[in-house]
């Protein structure tokens, strides 16, 4: 990977690039460029989207939400000097049976983009499900440097993008 200067991108840079079809799933998941730290059905995050966490303080804010049940210890063990955290959340779901997890991580765009492909599960129609509101999410740890942007696909119709 080329040295990656932190580029401050300016307003208006909304990229609506069509999703790269994830049919070329990276089968080298062992490459430690991104790893799922934990996932939970109750993250307490009410909106679908993602949060990029660089500091323990920010992490702490995310861990103090009501209606939350996460493996806090695993998240606190992440060394934020080496890895940042990407919270990918589905937002509030009306029942149990919903989940999101990391399916694959791959480099794109001359290694400038880290793509995280998410696997989203929802109960099939007609499945019996618990009737408590859930807020599923997954937390992925990524090295702090090495790319200009992170694109998360599979959660919404268009990619969720973090510019670094």
């Amino acid at each position, binding site marked *: 990977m080329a040295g990656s200067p932190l580029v401050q*991108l*300016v*307003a*208006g*840079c*909304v*990229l609506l690039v069509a999703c790269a079809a994830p049919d070329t799933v990276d089968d080298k998941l062992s490459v430690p460029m991104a790893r799922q730290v*934990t*996932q*939970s*059905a*109750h*993250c*307490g*995050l*009410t*909106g679908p*989207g*993602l*949060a990029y966490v660089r500091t323990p*303080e920010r992490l*702490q*804010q*995310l861990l*103090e*939400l*009501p*209606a939350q*049940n*996460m*493996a*806090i*210890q*695993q998240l606190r063990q992440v060394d934020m000097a080496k890895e940042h955290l990407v*919270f990918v*959340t589905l937002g*509030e779901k*009306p*029942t*149990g*049976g*919903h*989940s999101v*997890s990391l399916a694959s991580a791959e480099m794109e765009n001359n290694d400038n983009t880290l793509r995280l492909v998410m696997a989203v*599960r929802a*109960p099939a129609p*007609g*499945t*019996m*499900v*618990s*009737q*408590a*509101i*859930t807020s*599923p999410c*997954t937390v992925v740890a990524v090295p702090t440097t090495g790319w200009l942007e992170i694109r998360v696909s599979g959660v919404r119709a268009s990619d*969720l*993008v973090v*510019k670094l």
Partner: protein
Amino acid sequence: MRANFRAATLFKHSILVGLVAALTGCGGSSGGNEPATASSALSGTIDIETGTRVDADNADALSLNSSPLRTSQSLPPEFILAGYVSASSGIYPGLSRYSADPFDTFSMFLRKGQSISLQPFSTIRGPSPLTLSLLSDGRDVATVSTSNQSDPIRVSLPDAETAGTYTLKVEATGSEPMLYILSTSAAGSALAASFDWPDHDFADAEAIVVFRQNKDQVSMRSSVPQGVMEPEMELAPGVWLMKAPSQTARSSRSQTKESTLDWIRTLNKRPEVALATPNYTMRAMQTPLDEPLYNNPSVGQQWHYELINAPIAWQIINNGGVGVTVAVMDTGLYGAPGNWHSDLNANVVQPLPAGTDFVSEAFDNDGVPGRDSNPSDPGNAVGTSVFHGTHVAGTIAAAVNGAGGAGIAYKASLLPVRVLGEGGTGSSADLLAALNWVAGLDVGKPRADIVNLSLGGLPFQPQLRDAINAGADRGIVYVAAAGNSASTLASYPAAYEKVFSVSAVDGAGVLASYSNSGDWIDLAAPGGDASRDGNADGRSDLVSSTSASIINGAPKETYIGLQGTSMAAPHVSAVFALMKSLDKELDYERLNDRLMKGELTYRDCGGGSCPKTSELGWGLVDAGKSTLAASANSVSEFLTASPSIVNLSTEGELSASISLSAYGNNPDGITIDSVSAAAPWLQLDSVPASEDSGTDFSIGVTLLPEALEAGISERTTIVVEYTGDEFRRLEIPVIGQRVTDQQARDAGRHFVLLVDPEPEGDLYTTVAQTSSVAENGQYQFSFMPDDGIEPKLLNEVPPGKYILVAGSDLDNDGLICHAGEACSEYPVAGLREEITVRLGETVTGIRMTTSYSRPAISANTPDILPRPGFRGYKLMQQRSDSGGTSGAAPKTIGAAR
């Protein structure tokens, strides 16, 4: 005026809008008079939550004018204030500036022992320490500093200090700008603190006496003078249960209590007595009111029990539902057979019958694929679970054991039946097998009295209906969650005829935003709503109960708040369990008959007969009324009050009429002995006369606000003593509040934005923007239709779908709604709904409420937390080089950082 606005545009934002409003004659400056006119596209009003104040020299205000305040701002006795301090001025990443404002001072009256808390919030420049000091005439009374963290700090008026006017000083002791929220104890906690139900929980004419020397029975009888006390039982060496001489008995019950206490006081003066105490009955310790969780601010008090009058039910039926078995068909329980969650273990059927885990292999995750006899909930194989079945079971029958919380039927038996596996999903075949099993067709008798089904999502299936009908014919009562799809589509099993279908309400008894509704709803119960604080206790309305969490890598038992119709159904199951403990014959038909007569629910329809509604069915379950209805089969005669809790406020009702109704076999025999209320702020306008008898009485009361301290809630009780089959007393809680701050509420200048519903990255695109300052405790706002003429003004909105949000920018960083700033979302914070702006149409009368609190409130502090993945809504910037009225607004500010 124009010159003023020009000055503002040097910095940013939509000041232009106010000017446009003025030019078009739509009201005065930003946020003035009723702005709705034919030329407006969208207009409305933003209310401000009680007690809200703002630091007058916040960075947004400083960007508009002048220098920091030199004087102290006055604060009311209860408040929540957001503020800004910074040791120096500077520029944020981006272009926004922040001003120097090294400290803020506030002046307020502090009561003895009162404390003030401060929650620090970093700006985008990162954390920096703050110091909070309490000063009296320049003398430092108490000082505490933050430690660069986000933890709240607190100063209290030391015991040695007297109540009076003190100065609070918030100082930036680091180099970076900081936001903070300063508040008296969390909104509503004063109310909660005085929410102690009076209990008369000691035995009449009895005392436990510790003697100075060991007294055996013989020596004691000789040494204790006759007529002082009579030994009843030796409890321990030298410790005796004593009876009072018979002449201390009095005619009225309260006199008996008082005379018992008088007698104990005289005992304590006797030379041979080391200590005499009342013989406290265990009854008061045996209701969930006394459990730590009941008023635990860190988890959230169990408001949902108050809402359904459970405390009254526990007085009427004090057996906790003993002898009634409730099958919880769910995800199983946390723990293992014989060692369940410690708050449930005592009530779980022991030993469990064989075959209680019905989860088939496709959904199973408990390590033993397929059906077995262990209904333990293993949690989710992937990701953290909340132990759904454990939570549901806790609401029904967590034990009263001095730890955690308790269920409504706290002595009922729990039969865990596992039908939901991984992630809370399962199959109708497994449910069918479980339903047939619980009906007990194979063993000749039902395996449970009540079946709670906090599950749904199934289509109609005749086999399930038949299994339920078979069980109902054998006396089983089925209760099910109506579902969380905010839909009217019938959801099964709730919608089967012989299942009580339960919709969910929030803390105000209003249908929860997610709850299903429809003509198939039978009744409602608290399910919570994380996005609301309907009961205004300063916390989001979650239902607290037993659960487990991953702590240090392993699941440990705990208590958490959840929301859903899953949480509502067990309230009803538990109330039915209390009822069935008195009347085993209560089956579906009998319960439904009483439900339709209004005997089981709280409904207020002006005295007339209440129709069934699609939202709440026959109404919100009322545990007090329900248990009274069940106990009417016995000889008891009770008086019950409606409403059961009276709220009087200068902002709400000043007077109330309370209806008293008699229940029992012979309610005509109820005779009123006395009606009294001790608080000086409550006037009894009309009361039934002493010796009145009958079945219906009424009491009229009026709040005397001048006798109340402004801004503070007080609580008292109206005591009705009456005689039916025996002497009884009814205590009606009354809460009074003199609200004085409505006009003074201010959350800082508000920016009102219409944003694109689809976020780009972690920011929403702002399409139109206006601003407003608080007048008379409200903000008025108005957007204009986009006339297509370039340049587009900031407050012009083209037709389309938008999310409407508003908030303050106290740190002047160009983002609103992040932690430490006020935020409002339409219709309620946390539950944004799209608003459609159509060509040529005007939307008026939009109503929102702004607050520093978020749906994400945690702990007992008004802890404002951001929406993760969300840094605030970006304000559209006014170009600094633009002319006053012609600034071209950027149309998209999406992925800006």
